[in-house]
């Protein structure tokens, strides 16, 4: 294919830092998690205990998937980190493909390349080659690293290749998504939605219990990772499924490339209104137009996620009812209600991290507007810088509460119906979700301050979320010092529902968020735009 080689080299040159961060980061987290799992669950007895409790707990099943075999460190690692690690590999591949196909096309750079001597399919093929190689390298390094740590080679390669295979599938998903829409943002949303559905399908399937629809797990590429059963039988044949799906998706994408014009999507853009609605006449009206799709999408998604997580909570209680011995132990610790609350508190914590993604997206909209030269014409009107920034910050701030309340509502409704107390559970879970608002505001404040002070590094806000995610989810496992854990605002939020809520940490976080936001406003007032 003409031009493929040079396009691949161009992509590698542009992304050398980005790719290095992804590869080193993902492999590093996986291997360090493996070694701490080895330390924490060093004895066979401790692993057996973990297998007996966590592996059959529907809450953990929904969040992390089944623990097939707790007898080795590798088996525990595959359960604890498998789905999340694969989720990140999938995200990486999907972003990479969009970045080198639709995003390039949208900016018009691909036109420049398309006019040079390259085959029609070359840009897509180059993006696929880059994403495919990146995920495969991650898979192989994980496999070699785990083998080096003394795990069984077969299991290590099963887990490594399963990681890579999720990357392959989402390389394909990204390739198709990039053909469907005319904007990179929408393309990423399409692929992101597929990733979300893949996670939810396996969550429902895994937690369904023996009589439930366990087959749902088989519909999800993330479910295939679980079914590969790394360190618990190593069913390499399951990996044929992602390979086949990858092939189908790439063929579909290349057929679509041949069918459409450069710059066009599959669905032609229709004509719109010749006049602006009354609402579109102020900085706020413009921000509403630009932000509403994202806000509505996140509100619905988190509502569904909350409902799915909430549907599992009752199962936690049922599991206890079926096991009198365990019930006795738990009763000593505070009763079954307390265990359900621990579960609900942990899902609310995860949902809060998701809402942090929303808040960064929403805040960084400012940077996109600036780099795409759309801020300039607006700031050349009587709209002040304060009003322009404020109109978007308002969405980040209020939107945080909206998406979190939606998640709490989803969880509360479903759990409430199952335990026969809708009003009470909705109030409790909406309240619990809203308790996290100050921590998410801190993330929003950080993103705004970065945008105002060092605009070129505004996208480092994403790294901030990853750091908070690792601190919160893996911090205890990695046995980090308390001061390190305290860096994350989420550490300071009481574990609600269940824990007592004290106002002090919430007030402090709100103050920190307010200070960061004020800093952002002040710094943006003083800096150059464009």
């Amino acid at each position, binding site marked *: 294919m003409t031009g493929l080689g040079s396009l691949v080299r161009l992509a590698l040159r542009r992304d050398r830092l980005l790719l290095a961060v992804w590869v080193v980061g993902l492999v590093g987290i996986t291997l360090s998690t493996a070694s701490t799992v080895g330390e924490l669950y060093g004895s066979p007895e401790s692993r057996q205990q973990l297998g007996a409790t966590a592996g059959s707990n529907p809450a953990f099943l929904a969040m992390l998937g089944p623990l097939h075999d707790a007898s080795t460190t590798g088996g525990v690692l595959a359960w604890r980190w498998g789905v999340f690690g694969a989720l990140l590999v999938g995200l990486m591949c999907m972003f990479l493909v969009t970045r080198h196909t639709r995003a390039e096309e949208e900016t018009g750079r691909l036109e420049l390349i398309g006019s040079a001597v390259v085959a029609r399919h070359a840009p897509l093929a180059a993006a696929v080659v880059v994403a495919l190689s990146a995920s495969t390298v991650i898979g192989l390094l994980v496999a070699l690293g785990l083998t080096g740590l003394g795990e069984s080679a077969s299991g290590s390669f099963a887990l490594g290749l399963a990681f890579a295979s999720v990357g392959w599938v989402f390389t394909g998903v990204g390739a198709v998504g990039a053909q469907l829409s005319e904007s990179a943002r929408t393309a990423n949303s399409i692929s992101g939605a597929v990733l979300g559905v893949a996670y939810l399908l396996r969550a429902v399937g895994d937690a369904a219990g023996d009589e439930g629809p366990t087959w749902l797990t088989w519909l999800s590429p993330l479910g295939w990772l679980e079914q590969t059963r790394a360190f618990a039988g190593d069913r390499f044949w399951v990996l044929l499924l992602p390979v086949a799906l990858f092939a189908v998706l790439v063929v579909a994408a290349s057929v679509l490339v041949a069918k459409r014009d450069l710059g066009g999507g599959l669905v032609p853009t229709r004509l719109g209104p010749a006049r602006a609605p009354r609402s579109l006449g102020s900085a706020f009206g413009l921000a509403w137009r630009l932000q509403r799709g994202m806000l509505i999408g996140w509100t619905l998604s988190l509502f569904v996620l909350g409902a799915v997580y909430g549907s599992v909570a009752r199962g936690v209680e049922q599991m206890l009812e079926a096991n009198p011995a365990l019930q006795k132990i738990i009763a000593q610790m505070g009763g079954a209600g307390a265990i359900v609350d621990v579960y609900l508190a942990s899902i609310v914590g995860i949902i809060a991290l998701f809402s942090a993604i929303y808040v960064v997206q929403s805040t960084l909209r400012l940077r996109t507007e600036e780099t795409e030269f759309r801020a*300039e014409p607006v700031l050349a009107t009587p709209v002040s810088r304060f009003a322009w920034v404020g109109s978007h910050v308002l969405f980040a701030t209020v939107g945080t509460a909206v998406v979190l309340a939606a998640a709490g509502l989803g969880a509360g409704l479903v759990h409430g119906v199952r335990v026969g107390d809708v009003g009470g559970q909705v109030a409790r879970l909406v309240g619990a979700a809203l308790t996290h608002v100050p921590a998410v505001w801190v993330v929003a404040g950080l993103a705004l301050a970065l945008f105002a002070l060092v605009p070129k590094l505004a996208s480092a806000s994403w790294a901030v979320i990853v750091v908070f995610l690792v601190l919160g989810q893996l911090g205890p496992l990695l046995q980090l010092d308390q001061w390190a854990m305290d860096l994350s605002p989420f550490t300071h939020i009481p574990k609600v529902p269940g824990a007592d809520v004290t106002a002090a940490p919430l007030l402090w976080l709100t103050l920190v968020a307010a200070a960061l936001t004020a800093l952002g406003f002040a710094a943006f007032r003083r800096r150059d735009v464009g």
Partner: protein
Amino acid sequence: MTAAISVSGLVKTFGPTRALDGLDLAVREGEVHGFLGPNGSGKSTTIRVLLGLLRADAGSASLLGGDPWRDTAELHRRLAYVPGDVSLWPNLTGGEVIDLLGRLRGGLNEKRRAELLERFELDPRKKGRTYSKGNRQKVALVAALASDVELLILDEPTSGLDPLMEAVFQEAVNELRGERTVLLSSHILAEVEALCDRVSIIRNGRTVETGTLADLRHLTRTSVSAELVGAPSGLAGLPGVHDLAVEGNRVRFEVDTDHLDTALRALVGSGVRALTSQPPTLEELFLRHYEDELPAGATEGAMSS
């Protein structure tokens, strides 16, 4: 007349690059002022400083009697701006953008909006991402020209327009002459010649020439070619005559505009059969200031309007 824009000694650096290096600019109220310079000479940077988007490192700038950095919002009520590279929101239609920008500025002249859409042959129902470069520029132009403001700041507003639309643009600006002050940055010399009352030429962030076109013409030469009755005489020694070429009874030369009269008298002395004289074009003016940036010999006919 009072000054709509007055800038002196403006300096703006981006890291090691000195984008503006002591730039001066004076635009009088009610005039159409041409702002000429090659790519990268600092035109857009100057405009961004005037719009309060960039903060100057040194020098002073005043816009409509106010400070562009301090009094941003009040000043922006009184001006409309067309950026050089118009970027629209992908999912807003052209009509929506025109209304939005107009409303942000405090309202549009509805009649002019409709009339301009028609003259520019712009379909306001298309989404931002589907417009070509020229059509994106038209969206911004309609929004600016239909606004009731005192000052129009136009940064290379016609670089994407075809010649027909360029004519529509010139017509529209001519209709506003006297009612609005216009700062027109451009490197299309014919446009500047057709529209501008006064011109400032900048280079490497400094103003190298400023004045009316007539003023500037005095600084340059008229080219003359003539067919004479007899052999030409008395031209060679005249002050201000350059590049004299004689072929039998034909003569070609260039003459400093100040010495045009003496040179013509000398021609008449030999009896004139045919005469063509070309007034100095802005190209020549422009090229004179940029000559040393162009390779030798490239000056002649290197630019066409």
